[in-house]
């Protein structure tokens, strides 16, 4: 039955796994809604970007090889992140230019790997996630998803079908929020300036909630918004689309 019910492996991503499990459950729910059978291979940790972008090629290769192994045999691999999805789909192969066998497996994995929302729309043909949200949202385009994987219209298409939701476009939506993985802690002053520009743009939309498809960016924006005392809430777009908004927004506590 794998023709009609594709076998999808969820690449949870390390940040979702540790900081925002609800995004993982939202991804599973959406994938099942799209007619997929979802598994979560146990032998996954991180896509390897912290090592890759820090110039540590040996550790990157080891982590990539382990990921390639863990995700073999699935029809698709889906990540609720354009950044991690982009790492697997666009960068794994180049790591193994000295190892044709692994390079071939990396290429095969790359062809099966997708960012969650673009997978739902482009591969599974989803046009309506059957969700409702009473409020005004704005959407930030995370860099890797946008520029490496072409994630742009897909989240907007699904959001426009959410009952009760109004989307106010974010000025400068395609400009980086200043997260950049380890960048934000290595160059905190510059990062702060960038995220400050971003949160000012977010406030200007009048939205009650800002959404994006990558938890790194979301935690950065949420951390800045809450530090500045903003009332704007922050959520992963999958939470809205899956209707999983019982969990407090990112950076908000049970006390609020």
């Amino acid at each position, binding site marked *: 039955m794998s023709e009609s019910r594709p076998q999808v492996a969820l690449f949870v991503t390390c940040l979702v796994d540790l900081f925002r499990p609800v995004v993982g459950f939202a991804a599973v729910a959406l994938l099942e809604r799209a007619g997929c059978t979802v598994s979560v291979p146990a032998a996954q940790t991180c896509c390897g970007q912290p090592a890759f972008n820090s*110039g540590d090629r040996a550790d990157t290769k080891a982590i990539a090889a382990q990921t390639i192994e863990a995700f073999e045999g699935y029809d698709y691999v889906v990540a609720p992140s354009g950044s991690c999805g982009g790492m697997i789909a666009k960068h794994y192969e180049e790591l193994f230019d000295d190892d044709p066998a692994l390079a071939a497996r990396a290429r095969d994995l790359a062809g099966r790997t997708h960012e969650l929302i673009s997978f739902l729309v482009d591969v599974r043909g989803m046009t309506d996630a059957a969700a409702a949200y009473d409020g005004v949202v704005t959407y930030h385009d995370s860099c890797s998803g946008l520029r490496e994987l072409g994630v742009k219209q897909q989240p907007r298409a699904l959001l426009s079908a959410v009952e009760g939701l109004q989307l106010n476009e974010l000025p400068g939506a395609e400009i980086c929020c200043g997260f950049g993985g380890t960048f934000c802690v290595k160059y905190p002053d510059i990062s702060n*300036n960038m995220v400050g520009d971003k949160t000012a743009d977010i406030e200007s939309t009048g939205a009650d909630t800002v959404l994006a498809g990558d938890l790194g960016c979301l935690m950065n924006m949420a951390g800045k918004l809450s530090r500045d005392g903003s009332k704007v809430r922050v959520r992963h777009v999958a939470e809205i689309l899956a209707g999983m908004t019982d969990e407090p927004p990112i950076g908000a506590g049970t006390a609020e």
Partner: protein
Amino acid sequence: MKSTSPQFKENARAALANDTLQAALNKMESGFVVNRAAAAARLPEFEALRDQGRDIKNHTLDHIDFYLEAFEAKVREAGGHVHWAATAEDARRIILEICRSVDAKTVTKGKSMIAEEIGLNDFFEANDIQPVETDLGEYIIQLRNETPSHIIAPAIHVLKEEVAETFHEAHSHLDPARSLEEPRALLDEARAELRQKFIDADVGITGANFLIAETGSSVIVTNEGNGDLTQTLPKIHIAVASLEKVVPTLEDATVLLRLLARSATGQEFSSYTTFSTGPRRPEDPDGPEQYHVVLLDNGRSSMLGTETQEALRCIRCGACMNHCPVYGSIGGHAYGWVYPGPIGSVLTPSFIGVEDGRHLPNASTFCGRCEAVCPMRIPLPKMMRHFREQVFEQKLSPATERMGLGLWAFFARRPALYRWATGLGIGLLAVLGRRRGRFRALPFAGGWTQYRDLPAPHGKSFQQQWTAKGGRRAREK
């Protein structure tokens, strides 16, 4: 030019605290960025043109020895001279000798980043020759004793009010009560001041956007016409250019010109595009008596055949810095050497070494906007990553950073141990942070919590919860 790249972090902090600089930088998104996007959208074949431009440069770089020699032969044929300068010092010496041959006192200069790279102005002054910058932006920063902070808009960091102040101070022979409020007044005054200098100059020095092997021509593009006056009025025209400026044919140059103006300023073509071929011929009404080309290597040939060769495709349009959010935050001077922005983050470690230049390729979020707009499709993030690998291999990054990465990688390479350790850690954080949902400060997280709260995890990890609910771990058979 002396580098302050090793002090990048301090430079950046100072730039962020500089309100006039911040005001100047905030205009970039609404200017350059919007104009480039509109120009690209108006030309249906723009993306195809980028492919073509990339291919022309790749072909040229693969056969650069052939095209440079062909260029030299054509320049000679037209009665000009070509000088090969392996280093900045060689280039300065050659230029000085040419200037001395006519006992030059004043030299006018068109805008040239190569002249910046070889520190030509300071060298001239040390040798009793007065250099006069004739590009308005360059003229302004010369008066202010500054260096360019952008490769096509050298005075982008200066507000017009500051220019007025500088002009009042520098042009002390003019009426101190005159109004310099309007940009037009500033322009008119600079033009009037420069007019006599053009006529007095003994030598005119320009850069070159392209060198054409087919014809032996050097090409400059300007919007002010200053380059034309610089290269046609004095007795001698010296074009100083780096090796990779060569292209095979006129046709190739036109492809690149169409990309250059659109990518740089959003113009379809610059106001002036001038081709210089040899000195004045007997039938010419004007032009220099001597035409010299100084070809600078200064480390470029050692980039050929390496991971950084693709950076030599650069045509210096500045689009990468116009679109870079890091450049937009700190401006060009913070980068600490001649070339700022993403291309500078690749060229600087190439030229001054990875130890001094190590911050530049690291200070990027890899947002990819530079590569997305680069007319020559230079994979800038990939090249910055290449330097990060060198920094890592040579252990040039702080020990704490490398230790942290090593510790993380130790766990990330051992999934079972990773699940156990992260489960423990996240459980602890969740208990501590559950009520407020975030941390204002946390040990070892100062880089983050200095400016931002850290959102707290809410409970058990996804993996723990998935196991607890008996979620599927392997594909359906």
